[in-house]
Protein backbone atom coordinates (compact mmCIF):
# COMPACT_ATOMS: atom_id res chain seq x y z
CA UNK A 1 0.00 0.00 0.00
CA UNK A 2 1.40 3.38 -1.02
CA UNK A 3 -0.02 6.45 0.65
CA UNK A 4 0.41 10.19 0.60
CA UNK A 5 0.47 12.27 3.74
CA UNK A 6 0.03 16.04 3.50
CA UNK A 7 1.70 18.04 6.26
CA UNK A 8 0.24 21.51 6.80
CA UNK A 9 2.36 23.80 8.90
CA UNK A 10 1.56 27.40 9.82
CA UNK A 11 4.81 28.49 11.48
CA UNK A 12 5.94 32.01 10.63
CA UNK A 13 9.60 32.16 11.64
CA UNK A 14 12.59 30.44 10.11
CA UNK A 15 13.68 28.13 11.59
CA UNK A 16 10.25 27.38 12.95
CA UNK A 17 9.49 25.16 15.94
CA UNK A 18 6.11 24.49 14.31
CA UNK A 19 7.85 23.13 11.23
CA UNK A 20 10.23 21.17 13.48
CA UNK A 21 7.30 19.46 15.20
CA UNK A 22 5.66 18.85 11.80
CA UNK A 23 8.81 17.16 10.51
CA UNK A 24 9.08 14.94 13.58
CA UNK A 25 5.43 13.91 13.27
CA UNK A 26 5.85 13.23 9.56
CA UNK A 27 8.93 11.07 10.07
CA UNK A 28 7.20 9.11 12.83
CA UNK A 29 4.10 8.62 10.68
CA UNK A 30 6.17 7.25 7.80
CA UNK A 31 7.88 4.88 10.19
CA UNK A 32 4.64 3.79 11.88
CA UNK A 33 3.08 3.11 8.46
CA UNK A 34 6.13 1.05 7.48
CA UNK A 35 5.49 -1.04 10.60
CA UNK A 36 2.02 -1.91 9.25
CA UNK A 37 3.38 -2.65 5.78
CA UNK A 38 2.53 0.66 4.07
CA UNK A 39 4.84 3.13 2.41
CA UNK A 40 4.08 6.82 2.51
CA UNK A 41 5.16 9.89 0.59
CA UNK A 42 5.07 13.30 2.18
CA UNK A 43 3.84 16.63 0.81
CA UNK A 44 4.73 19.52 3.09
CA UNK A 45 2.56 22.63 2.72
CA UNK A 46 4.05 25.71 4.37
CA UNK A 47 1.34 28.34 4.77
CA UNK A 48 3.62 31.35 5.26
CA UNK A 49 4.38 31.82 1.53
CA UNK A 50 0.67 31.40 0.77
CA UNK A 51 -0.50 34.17 3.11
CA UNK A 52 -1.12 36.77 0.38
CA UNK A 53 -2.77 34.23 -1.91
CA UNK A 54 -5.05 33.16 0.95
CA UNK A 55 -6.19 36.75 1.56
CA UNK A 56 -6.77 37.16 -2.19
CA UNK A 57 -8.71 33.90 -2.26
CA UNK A 58 -11.02 35.14 0.49
CA UNK A 59 -11.68 38.33 -1.47
CA UNK A 60 -11.97 36.95 -4.99
CA UNK A 61 -13.39 33.46 -4.46
CA UNK A 62 -10.77 31.57 -6.46
CA UNK A 63 -7.30 30.29 -5.55
CA UNK A 64 -4.27 31.12 -7.66
CA UNK A 65 -0.93 29.50 -8.47
CA UNK A 66 0.85 27.88 -5.56
CA UNK A 67 -2.28 28.01 -3.41
CA UNK A 68 -4.21 25.90 -5.94
CA UNK A 69 -1.38 23.38 -5.93
CA UNK A 70 -1.28 23.29 -2.12
CA UNK A 71 -5.06 22.83 -1.86
CA UNK A 72 -4.93 20.01 -4.41
CA UNK A 73 -2.22 18.25 -2.39
CA UNK A 74 -4.18 18.53 0.84
CA UNK A 75 -7.61 17.48 -0.44
CA UNK A 76 -6.24 14.44 -2.24
CA UNK A 77 -3.99 13.18 0.58
CA UNK A 78 -4.70 9.90 2.36
CA UNK A 79 -3.86 11.44 5.73
CA UNK A 80 -3.02 14.82 7.20
CA UNK A 81 -0.69 16.20 9.83
CA UNK A 82 -1.64 19.75 10.73
CA UNK A 83 0.44 22.00 12.97
CA UNK A 84 -0.25 25.56 14.08
CA UNK A 85 1.45 27.92 16.46
CA UNK A 86 -0.86 29.08 19.25
CA UNK A 87 -1.78 32.76 18.93
CA UNK A 88 -4.06 34.49 21.43
CA UNK A 89 -5.43 31.29 22.91
CA UNK A 90 -6.18 29.51 19.61
CA UNK A 91 -4.69 28.27 16.36
CA UNK A 92 -3.35 31.09 14.20
CA UNK A 93 -5.48 33.09 11.80
CA UNK A 94 -3.33 31.96 8.89
CA UNK A 95 -3.90 28.32 9.82
CA UNK A 96 -7.68 28.86 9.93
CA UNK A 97 -7.70 30.73 6.61
CA UNK A 98 -6.31 27.72 4.82
CA UNK A 99 -9.06 25.44 6.09
CA UNK A 100 -11.67 28.16 5.46
CA UNK A 101 -11.03 28.13 1.71
CA UNK A 102 -11.43 24.38 1.13
CA UNK A 103 -14.59 23.11 -0.54
CA UNK A 104 -17.21 21.80 1.91
CA UNK A 105 -16.54 18.19 2.90
CA UNK A 106 -13.24 18.17 0.99
CA UNK A 107 -11.58 16.54 3.99
CA UNK A 108 -14.45 14.32 5.10
CA UNK A 109 -13.22 11.05 6.55
CA UNK A 110 -9.52 11.90 6.31
CA UNK A 111 -7.39 10.71 9.28
CA UNK A 112 -5.51 13.64 10.79
CA UNK A 113 -2.98 14.31 13.54
CA UNK A 114 -3.59 17.62 15.30
CA UNK A 115 -0.56 19.42 16.68
CA UNK A 116 0.47 22.83 17.98
CA UNK A 117 3.41 24.72 19.40
CA UNK A 118 3.58 27.55 21.91
CA UNK A 119 5.92 29.25 24.32
CA UNK A 120 4.15 27.79 27.32
CA UNK A 121 2.50 24.47 28.13
CA UNK A 122 -0.40 26.43 29.60
CA UNK A 123 -1.84 26.61 26.07
CA UNK A 124 -1.92 22.87 25.53
CA UNK A 125 -5.70 22.47 25.78
CA UNK A 126 -6.14 24.67 22.71
CA UNK A 127 -5.76 21.42 20.80
CA UNK A 128 -8.78 19.94 22.52
CA UNK A 129 -10.93 23.05 22.87
CA UNK A 130 -10.27 24.78 19.54
CA UNK A 131 -8.50 22.63 17.01
CA UNK A 132 -10.35 19.36 17.58
CA UNK A 133 -13.83 20.96 17.14
CA UNK A 134 -12.61 22.56 13.89
CA UNK A 135 -11.54 19.21 12.52
CA UNK A 136 -14.74 17.57 13.75
CA UNK A 137 -16.67 20.20 11.82
CA UNK A 138 -14.58 19.38 8.75
CA UNK A 139 -15.69 15.74 9.23
CA UNK A 140 -12.11 14.51 9.45
CA UNK A 141 -11.10 11.61 11.69
CA UNK A 142 -8.58 13.02 14.20
CA UNK A 143 -6.35 10.68 16.17
CA UNK A 144 -7.16 10.44 19.89
CA UNK A 145 -3.70 11.83 20.69
CA UNK A 146 -3.04 15.43 19.68
CA UNK A 147 0.52 16.63 20.09
CA UNK A 148 1.43 19.84 21.83
CA UNK A 149 5.01 21.08 22.09
CA UNK A 150 6.03 24.00 24.29
CA UNK A 151 9.47 25.57 24.05
CA UNK A 152 10.55 23.54 27.06
CA UNK A 153 9.68 20.26 25.28
CA UNK A 154 12.31 20.85 22.64
CA UNK A 155 15.00 21.08 25.35
CA UNK A 156 13.50 18.19 27.21
CA UNK A 157 15.89 15.92 29.10
CA UNK A 158 13.38 13.84 31.05
CA UNK A 159 13.16 10.77 28.82
CA UNK A 160 11.58 12.32 25.73
CA UNK A 161 7.93 12.78 26.75
CA UNK A 162 7.32 14.74 23.51
CA UNK A 163 8.79 11.93 21.44
CA UNK A 164 6.52 9.45 23.17
CA UNK A 165 3.47 11.53 22.30
CA UNK A 166 4.63 11.98 18.70
CA UNK A 167 5.10 8.25 18.26
CA UNK A 168 1.75 7.44 19.85
CA UNK A 169 -0.06 9.87 17.54
CA UNK A 170 1.82 8.44 14.55
CA UNK A 171 0.81 4.87 15.48
CA UNK A 172 -2.81 5.98 15.84
CA UNK A 173 -2.66 7.65 12.43
CA UNK A 174 -1.19 4.50 10.87
CA UNK A 175 -3.97 2.43 12.43
CA UNK A 176 -6.66 4.76 11.06
CA UNK A 177 -5.16 4.92 7.60
CA UNK A 178 -4.56 1.19 7.27
CA UNK A 179 -7.66 -0.05 9.09
CA UNK A 180 -11.35 0.35 8.56
CA UNK A 181 -11.54 3.21 11.05
CA UNK A 182 -10.54 5.85 8.54
CA UNK A 183 -12.70 6.93 5.63
CA UNK A 184 -16.00 5.92 7.21
CA UNK A 185 -17.30 9.22 5.79
CA UNK A 186 -16.84 9.65 2.03
CA UNK A 187 -15.08 12.81 0.89
CA UNK A 188 -17.25 15.42 -0.84
CA UNK A 189 -16.91 15.68 -4.62
CA UNK A 190 -14.66 18.53 -5.71
CA UNK A 191 -15.91 21.11 -8.19
CA UNK A 192 -13.62 19.54 -10.81
CA UNK A 193 -15.17 16.13 -10.18
CA UNK A 194 -18.66 17.60 -10.48
CA UNK A 195 -17.77 19.15 -13.84
CA UNK A 196 -16.23 15.92 -15.05
CA UNK A 197 -19.22 13.86 -13.98
CA UNK A 198 -22.33 16.05 -13.53
CA UNK A 199 -25.55 14.99 -11.87
CA UNK A 200 -27.86 14.09 -14.79
CA UNK A 201 -30.70 16.57 -15.27
CA UNK A 202 -33.41 13.95 -14.88
CA UNK A 203 -32.09 13.45 -11.37
CA UNK A 204 -32.14 17.20 -10.72
CA UNK A 205 -35.75 17.28 -11.89
CA UNK A 206 -36.51 14.51 -9.42
CA UNK A 207 -37.76 12.32 -12.26
CA UNK A 208 -35.48 9.32 -11.91
Amino acid at each position, binding site marked *: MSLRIAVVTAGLSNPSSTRLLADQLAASAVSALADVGASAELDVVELRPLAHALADRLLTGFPTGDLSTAIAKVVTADALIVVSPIFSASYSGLFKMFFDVLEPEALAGVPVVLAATAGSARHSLVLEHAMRPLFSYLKTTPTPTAVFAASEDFGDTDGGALTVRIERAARELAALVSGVGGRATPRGRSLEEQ*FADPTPFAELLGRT
Partner: protein
Amino acid sequence: MQFGIFTVGDVTTDPTTGHTPTEHERIKATVAIAQKAEEVGLDVIAFGQHHNPPFTASSPTTTMAYVAALTERILLSTSTTLITTTDPVRIAEDYAQLQHLADGRMDLMLGRGNTGPVYPWFGKDIRQGIELAVENYALLHQLWRDDVVNWQGKHRTPLQGFTATPRPLDGVPPFVWHGSIRSPEIAEQAAYYGDGFFSNHIFWPSSHTAQMVGLYRRRFEHYGHGKAHQAIVGLGGQAFIAKNSQDAVNQFRPYFDNAPVYGHGPSLEEFVEATPLNVGSPQQVIEKTLGFREYAGDYQRQLWLMDHAGLPLKTVLEQLDLLGEEVVPVLRKEFAALRPADVPDAPTHQSLVAAAGGGRDSTVPAPADAVTGQSPVPEGARA
Protein backbone atom coordinates in the same frame (compact mmCIF):
# COMPACT_ATOMS: atom_id res chain seq x y z
CA MET B 1 -21.38 36.69 -33.29
CA GLN B 2 -23.05 39.18 -30.97
CA PHE B 3 -21.12 41.79 -29.01
CA GLY B 4 -22.54 43.87 -26.22
CA ILE B 5 -22.44 44.96 -22.62
CA PHE B 6 -24.02 43.78 -19.40
CA THR B 7 -24.71 45.82 -16.31
CA VAL B 8 -25.77 45.02 -12.78
CA GLY B 9 -26.97 48.55 -12.05
CA ASP B 10 -24.89 49.16 -8.95
CA VAL B 11 -24.66 52.52 -7.18
CA THR B 12 -21.00 52.82 -6.26
CA THR B 13 -19.03 55.84 -5.05
CA ASP B 14 -16.47 57.10 -7.53
CA PRO B 15 -13.26 56.59 -5.52
CA THR B 16 -11.48 59.41 -7.36
CA THR B 17 -14.06 62.10 -6.58
CA GLY B 18 -16.08 60.73 -3.69
CA HIS B 19 -19.26 61.29 -5.70
CA THR B 20 -22.04 58.77 -5.19
CA PRO B 21 -24.81 58.92 -7.80
CA THR B 22 -28.39 58.98 -6.62
CA GLU B 23 -30.63 56.10 -7.62
CA HIS B 24 -32.30 58.43 -10.09
CA GLU B 25 -28.97 59.38 -11.66
CA ARG B 26 -27.94 55.75 -11.89
CA ILE B 27 -31.19 54.62 -13.48
CA LYS B 28 -31.04 57.42 -16.05
CA ALA B 29 -27.35 56.70 -16.66
CA THR B 30 -28.23 53.09 -17.43
CA VAL B 31 -30.63 54.30 -20.13
CA ALA B 32 -27.98 56.64 -21.56
CA ILE B 33 -25.52 53.73 -21.61
CA ALA B 34 -28.04 51.58 -23.48
CA GLN B 35 -28.63 54.29 -26.08
CA LYS B 36 -24.89 54.76 -26.48
CA ALA B 37 -24.42 51.02 -26.91
CA GLU B 38 -26.80 51.08 -29.86
CA GLU B 39 -25.20 54.23 -31.28
CA VAL B 40 -21.70 52.69 -31.32
CA GLY B 41 -22.96 49.56 -33.05
CA LEU B 42 -23.15 47.02 -30.24
CA ASP B 43 -25.65 44.17 -30.66
CA VAL B 44 -26.83 43.47 -27.11
CA ILE B 45 -27.35 45.19 -23.77
CA ALA B 46 -28.25 43.13 -20.73
CA PHE B 47 -29.72 44.51 -17.49
CA GLY B 48 -29.46 43.06 -13.98
CA GLN B 49 -32.11 42.21 -11.41
CA HIS B 50 -31.32 42.90 -7.78
CA HIS B 51 -33.48 43.71 -4.80
CA ASN B 52 -31.07 45.32 -2.40
CA PRO B 53 -28.88 48.41 -2.13
CA PRO B 54 -26.47 49.31 -3.68
CA PHE B 55 -28.36 48.14 -6.78
CA THR B 56 -31.12 50.04 -8.58
CA ALA B 57 -32.22 47.32 -10.97
CA SER B 58 -35.19 45.58 -9.38
CA SER B 59 -37.45 45.61 -12.44
CA PRO B 60 -35.54 44.72 -15.61
CA THR B 61 -38.57 44.48 -17.90
CA THR B 62 -39.57 48.04 -17.04
CA THR B 63 -36.14 49.29 -18.05
CA MET B 64 -36.05 47.07 -21.11
CA ALA B 65 -39.43 48.24 -22.37
CA TYR B 66 -38.39 51.87 -21.91
CA VAL B 67 -35.11 51.29 -23.72
CA ALA B 68 -36.90 49.33 -26.46
CA ALA B 69 -38.97 52.43 -27.16
CA LEU B 70 -35.87 54.62 -27.41
CA THR B 71 -33.83 52.30 -29.63
CA GLU B 72 -34.30 50.54 -32.93
CA ARG B 73 -31.82 47.77 -33.36
CA ILE B 74 -30.05 46.66 -30.17
CA LEU B 75 -31.22 43.41 -28.60
CA LEU B 76 -32.29 43.65 -24.95
CA SER B 77 -31.39 40.93 -22.50
CA THR B 78 -30.85 40.40 -18.77
CA SER B 79 -27.89 39.70 -16.54
CA THR B 80 -29.64 38.05 -14.85
CA THR B 81 -33.35 37.38 -14.33
CA LEU B 82 -33.72 35.73 -10.94
CA ILE B 83 -35.29 32.37 -11.64
CA THR B 84 -35.01 31.28 -8.02
CA THR B 85 -36.99 33.99 -6.29
CA THR B 86 -39.20 35.42 -9.04
CA ASP B 87 -42.45 33.58 -9.58
CA PRO B 88 -42.11 31.80 -12.93
CA VAL B 89 -45.67 32.88 -13.76
CA ARG B 90 -44.55 36.52 -13.49
CA ILE B 91 -41.45 35.85 -15.57
CA ALA B 92 -43.56 34.15 -18.25
CA GLU B 93 -45.98 37.07 -18.42
CA ASP B 94 -43.57 40.00 -17.95
CA TYR B 95 -41.18 38.82 -20.64
CA ALA B 96 -43.92 37.81 -23.07
CA GLN B 97 -45.40 41.30 -22.68
CA LEU B 98 -41.96 42.76 -23.33
CA GLN B 99 -41.51 40.48 -26.33
CA HIS B 100 -44.66 41.96 -27.92
CA LEU B 101 -43.73 45.56 -27.10
CA ALA B 102 -40.16 45.13 -28.40
CA ASP B 103 -41.27 43.19 -31.49
CA GLY B 104 -39.16 40.24 -30.46
CA ARG B 105 -35.98 42.30 -29.96
CA MET B 106 -35.19 40.63 -26.61
CA ASP B 107 -34.10 37.48 -24.86
CA LEU B 108 -33.22 36.74 -21.24
CA MET B 109 -30.60 35.15 -19.09
CA LEU B 110 -31.62 33.27 -15.98
CA GLY B 111 -29.53 33.29 -12.82
CA ARG B 112 -29.76 32.42 -9.17
CA GLY B 113 -28.79 35.82 -7.77
CA ASN B 114 -25.87 37.20 -5.83
CA THR B 115 -26.98 37.26 -2.23
CA GLY B 116 -28.48 34.84 0.27
CA PRO B 117 -30.85 37.29 2.01
CA VAL B 118 -32.87 37.82 -1.20
CA TYR B 119 -34.43 34.37 -0.85
CA PRO B 120 -36.52 35.03 2.28
CA TRP B 121 -37.61 38.44 0.90
CA PHE B 122 -39.55 36.45 -1.64
CA GLY B 123 -40.55 33.61 0.64
CA LYS B 124 -37.86 31.21 -0.53
CA ASP B 125 -35.06 29.28 1.09
CA ILE B 126 -31.49 29.64 -0.20
CA ARG B 127 -30.71 26.03 0.67
CA GLN B 128 -33.07 25.14 -2.17
CA GLY B 129 -31.42 27.50 -4.67
CA ILE B 130 -30.60 24.88 -7.28
CA GLU B 131 -33.88 23.05 -6.76
CA LEU B 132 -35.78 26.32 -7.28
CA ALA B 133 -33.82 27.08 -10.45
CA VAL B 134 -34.68 23.64 -11.79
CA GLU B 135 -38.37 23.53 -10.86
CA ASN B 136 -39.14 27.16 -11.70
CA TYR B 137 -37.57 26.92 -15.12
CA ALA B 138 -39.37 23.69 -15.91
CA LEU B 139 -42.62 25.57 -15.20
CA LEU B 140 -41.57 28.70 -17.13
CA HIS B 141 -40.64 26.51 -20.11
CA GLN B 142 -44.08 24.93 -20.05
CA LEU B 143 -45.97 28.21 -19.55
CA TRP B 144 -44.51 29.59 -22.78
CA ARG B 145 -45.24 26.45 -24.76
CA ASP B 146 -48.57 25.13 -23.54
CA ASP B 147 -51.61 27.39 -23.80
CA VAL B 148 -53.27 25.68 -20.88
CA VAL B 149 -51.11 24.45 -18.02
CA ASN B 150 -51.92 22.02 -15.27
CA TRP B 151 -48.96 21.91 -12.96
CA GLN B 152 -47.93 20.84 -9.50
CA GLY B 153 -44.53 21.27 -7.86
CA LYS B 154 -42.89 21.73 -4.50
CA HIS B 155 -42.24 25.46 -4.44
CA ARG B 156 -45.44 27.27 -5.45
CA THR B 157 -49.16 26.71 -5.48
CA PRO B 158 -50.43 24.31 -8.17
CA LEU B 159 -51.87 25.64 -11.43
CA GLN B 160 -55.03 24.27 -12.94
CA GLY B 161 -56.17 25.24 -16.41
CA PHE B 162 -53.90 28.26 -16.27
CA THR B 163 -53.01 30.33 -19.33
CA ALA B 164 -50.11 32.77 -19.02
CA THR B 165 -50.92 35.93 -20.98
CA PRO B 166 -49.98 37.36 -23.37
CA ARG B 167 -48.92 34.29 -25.31
CA PRO B 168 -45.41 34.55 -26.80
CA LEU B 169 -45.09 36.71 -29.92
CA ASP B 170 -45.62 34.70 -33.12
CA GLY B 171 -46.03 31.59 -30.96
CA VAL B 172 -42.28 31.51 -30.30
CA PRO B 173 -40.96 31.78 -26.73
CA PRO B 174 -38.05 34.15 -26.03
CA PHE B 175 -34.63 32.54 -26.28
CA VAL B 176 -33.23 31.68 -22.86
CA TRP B 177 -29.64 31.72 -21.63
CA HIS B 178 -28.68 30.13 -18.35
CA GLY B 179 -26.05 32.19 -16.58
CA SER B 180 -23.66 30.69 -14.09
CA ILE B 181 -20.57 31.64 -12.13
CA ARG B 182 -19.72 28.21 -10.79
CA SER B 183 -22.59 25.69 -10.57
CA PRO B 184 -22.26 22.54 -12.71
CA GLU B 185 -26.01 21.99 -12.36
CA ILE B 186 -26.80 25.14 -14.36
CA ALA B 187 -24.54 24.09 -17.25
CA GLU B 188 -26.30 20.71 -17.17
CA GLN B 189 -29.71 22.44 -17.19
CA ALA B 190 -28.81 24.61 -20.21
CA ALA B 191 -27.58 21.52 -22.07
CA TYR B 192 -30.70 19.50 -21.23
CA TYR B 193 -33.02 22.09 -22.78
CA GLY B 194 -30.68 23.01 -25.63
CA ASP B 195 -30.78 26.61 -24.37
CA GLY B 196 -27.84 29.01 -24.35
CA PHE B 197 -25.20 28.90 -21.63
CA PHE B 198 -23.55 32.07 -20.42
CA SER B 199 -20.46 31.81 -18.29
CA ASN B 200 -19.97 34.90 -16.17
CA HIS B 201 -16.28 34.38 -16.86
CA ILE B 202 -15.13 37.58 -15.16
CA PHE B 203 -13.49 37.60 -11.73
CA TRP B 204 -12.48 33.91 -12.17
CA PRO B 205 -9.63 32.13 -13.93
CA SER B 206 -10.06 30.83 -17.46
CA SER B 207 -9.46 27.21 -16.36
CA HIS B 208 -12.75 27.37 -14.46
CA THR B 209 -14.69 28.76 -17.44
CA ALA B 210 -13.11 26.11 -19.66
CA GLN B 211 -14.49 23.28 -17.53
CA MET B 212 -17.95 24.88 -17.23
CA VAL B 213 -18.29 25.49 -20.95
CA GLY B 214 -16.78 22.06 -21.62
CA LEU B 215 -19.46 20.39 -19.51
CA TYR B 216 -22.23 22.34 -21.26
CA ARG B 217 -20.95 21.52 -24.75
CA ARG B 218 -20.48 17.81 -23.95
CA ARG B 219 -23.95 17.48 -22.44
CA PHE B 220 -25.58 19.59 -25.22
CA GLU B 221 -24.44 16.89 -27.63
CA HIS B 222 -25.45 14.12 -25.20
CA TYR B 223 -29.02 15.47 -25.12
CA GLY B 224 -29.17 15.48 -28.91
CA HIS B 225 -29.30 19.21 -29.69
CA GLY B 226 -26.32 19.14 -32.07
CA LYS B 227 -22.58 18.68 -31.95
CA ALA B 228 -20.69 20.01 -28.93
CA HIS B 229 -19.06 22.76 -30.99
CA GLN B 230 -22.52 23.93 -32.12
CA ALA B 231 -23.80 24.67 -28.61
CA ILE B 232 -24.76 28.28 -27.87
CA VAL B 233 -22.18 29.87 -25.58
CA GLY B 234 -21.88 33.37 -24.17
CA LEU B 235 -19.03 34.81 -22.15
CA GLY B 236 -18.68 37.79 -19.87
CA GLY B 237 -15.73 40.10 -20.13
CA GLN B 238 -14.41 43.18 -18.44
CA ALA B 239 -12.40 45.91 -20.10
CA PHE B 240 -10.99 49.37 -19.61
CA ILE B 241 -9.55 50.83 -22.78
CA ALA B 242 -7.29 53.76 -23.66
CA LYS B 243 -5.32 54.50 -26.81
CA ASN B 244 -2.17 54.04 -24.78
CA SER B 245 -2.07 51.01 -22.49
CA GLN B 246 -0.29 52.75 -19.59
CA ASP B 247 -3.02 55.43 -19.57
CA ALA B 248 -5.61 52.68 -19.27
CA VAL B 249 -3.82 51.17 -16.28
CA ASN B 250 -3.36 54.53 -14.57
CA GLN B 251 -6.95 55.63 -15.10
CA PHE B 252 -8.51 52.33 -14.08
CA ARG B 253 -6.32 51.49 -11.08
CA PRO B 254 -8.17 53.56 -8.44
CA TYR B 255 -11.46 51.98 -9.57
CA PHE B 256 -9.93 48.52 -9.55
CA ASP B 257 -8.34 48.94 -6.12
CA ASN B 258 -11.66 49.96 -4.56
CA ALA B 259 -14.07 47.83 -6.60
CA PRO B 260 -16.78 46.25 -4.43
CA VAL B 261 -16.27 42.71 -5.77
CA TYR B 262 -12.52 42.27 -5.95
CA GLY B 263 -11.00 45.47 -4.51
CA HIS B 264 -8.36 45.43 -1.76
CA GLY B 265 -7.28 41.98 -2.90
CA PRO B 266 -4.88 41.04 -5.68
CA SER B 267 -3.11 43.77 -7.63
CA LEU B 268 -4.54 44.92 -10.95
CA GLU B 269 -1.63 43.20 -12.71
CA GLU B 270 -2.26 39.89 -10.90
CA PHE B 271 -5.98 40.07 -11.66
CA VAL B 272 -5.36 40.80 -15.34
CA GLU B 273 -3.05 37.78 -15.41
CA ALA B 274 -5.51 35.45 -13.63
CA THR B 275 -8.90 36.54 -15.05
CA PRO B 276 -10.46 37.89 -18.28
CA LEU B 277 -10.01 41.50 -17.08
CA ASN B 278 -8.57 43.59 -19.88
CA VAL B 279 -6.93 46.93 -19.15
CA GLY B 280 -5.03 48.35 -22.06
CA SER B 281 -5.00 49.53 -25.63
CA PRO B 282 -7.67 48.49 -28.15
CA GLN B 283 -5.15 46.06 -29.63
CA GLN B 284 -4.54 44.41 -26.25
CA VAL B 285 -8.26 44.06 -25.64
CA ILE B 286 -8.70 42.54 -29.10
CA GLU B 287 -5.92 40.00 -28.56
CA LYS B 288 -7.05 38.87 -25.13
CA THR B 289 -10.67 38.58 -26.24
CA LEU B 290 -9.72 36.50 -29.26
CA GLY B 291 -7.89 34.22 -26.83
CA PHE B 292 -11.19 33.34 -25.10
CA ARG B 293 -12.15 31.02 -27.96
CA GLU B 294 -9.04 28.93 -27.33
CA TYR B 295 -10.63 27.50 -24.19
CA ALA B 296 -14.35 28.22 -24.74
CA GLY B 297 -14.53 27.26 -28.42
CA ASP B 298 -16.30 29.31 -31.09
CA TYR B 299 -18.96 31.17 -29.18
CA GLN B 300 -21.95 33.32 -29.98
CA ARG B 301 -22.15 36.17 -27.52
CA GLN B 302 -19.54 38.38 -25.87
CA LEU B 303 -20.74 40.83 -23.23
CA TRP B 304 -18.47 43.22 -21.34
CA LEU B 305 -19.02 44.79 -17.95
CA MET B 306 -18.15 48.46 -18.52
CA ASP B 307 -20.10 50.50 -15.97
CA HIS B 308 -19.19 49.29 -12.49
CA ALA B 309 -16.88 50.21 -9.60
CA GLY B 310 -18.06 53.83 -9.57
CA LEU B 311 -16.90 54.78 -13.07
CA PRO B 312 -18.71 58.03 -13.95
CA LEU B 313 -21.18 58.08 -16.84
CA LYS B 314 -18.90 60.29 -18.95
CA THR B 315 -16.09 57.74 -18.71
CA VAL B 316 -18.42 54.83 -19.43
CA LEU B 317 -19.69 56.55 -22.58
CA GLU B 318 -16.11 57.24 -23.72
CA GLN B 319 -15.29 53.58 -23.06
CA LEU B 320 -18.23 52.53 -25.20
CA ASP B 321 -16.97 54.74 -28.04
CA LEU B 322 -13.61 52.95 -27.91
CA LEU B 323 -15.22 49.54 -27.58
CA GLY B 324 -17.66 50.09 -30.42
CA GLU B 325 -15.33 51.89 -32.79
CA GLU B 326 -11.91 50.35 -32.23
CA VAL B 327 -12.41 46.92 -30.67
CA VAL B 328 -15.66 45.30 -31.80
CA PRO B 329 -15.33 45.87 -35.59
CA VAL B 330 -11.95 44.09 -35.54
CA LEU B 331 -13.25 41.28 -33.32
CA ARG B 332 -16.28 40.84 -35.55
CA LYS B 333 -14.04 40.26 -38.54
CA GLU B 334 -11.44 38.11 -36.77
CA PHE B 335 -13.93 35.83 -34.99
CA ALA B 336 -15.91 35.36 -38.22
CA ALA B 337 -12.75 34.38 -40.08
CA LEU B 338 -11.88 31.77 -37.44
CA ARG B 339 -15.35 30.26 -37.14
CA PRO B 340 -16.25 27.02 -38.96
CA ALA B 341 -19.32 27.28 -41.19
CA ASP B 342 -21.36 24.78 -39.13
CA VAL B 343 -21.24 26.83 -35.93
CA PRO B 344 -24.62 28.57 -35.64
CA ASP B 345 -25.32 32.15 -34.59
CA ALA B 346 -27.16 32.82 -31.35
CA PRO B 347 -30.89 32.40 -31.97
CA THR B 348 -32.92 35.59 -32.40
CA HIS B 349 -36.66 36.04 -32.63
CA GLN B 350 -36.42 36.06 -36.43
CA SER B 351 -34.37 32.88 -36.58
CA LEU B 352 -36.65 31.10 -34.10
CA VAL B 353 -39.72 32.09 -36.09
CA ALA B 354 -38.08 30.85 -39.27
CA ALA B 355 -37.13 27.58 -37.56
CA ALA B 356 -40.76 27.16 -36.43
CA GLY B 357 -41.88 27.40 -40.06
CA GLY B 358 -43.15 30.95 -39.73
CA GLY B 359 -44.93 32.98 -37.12
CA ARG B 360 -48.44 32.31 -35.99
CA ASP B 361 -50.76 34.32 -33.84
CA SER B 362 -50.88 32.51 -30.55
CA THR B 363 -53.64 34.52 -28.90
CA VAL B 364 -55.78 32.38 -26.63
CA PRO B 365 -59.28 33.86 -26.70
CA ALA B 366 -61.37 33.43 -23.57
CA PRO B 367 -63.96 30.71 -24.16
CA ALA B 368 -66.55 32.83 -22.40
CA ASP B 369 -66.45 35.74 -20.00
CA ALA B 370 -67.87 35.39 -16.55
CA VAL B 371 -70.47 38.19 -16.88
CA THR B 372 -72.24 37.48 -20.17
CA GLY B 373 -71.37 33.85 -20.67
CA GLN B 374 -70.40 34.81 -24.22
CA SER B 375 -67.02 34.52 -25.84
CA PRO B 376 -65.55 37.91 -26.80
CA VAL B 377 -64.34 36.29 -30.02
CA PRO B 378 -67.02 35.15 -32.49
CA GLU B 379 -67.13 31.37 -32.96
CA GLY B 380 -66.06 31.46 -36.59
CA ALA B 381 -63.12 33.80 -35.97
CA ARG B 382 -61.29 31.56 -33.50
CA ALA B 383 -58.01 30.03 -34.50
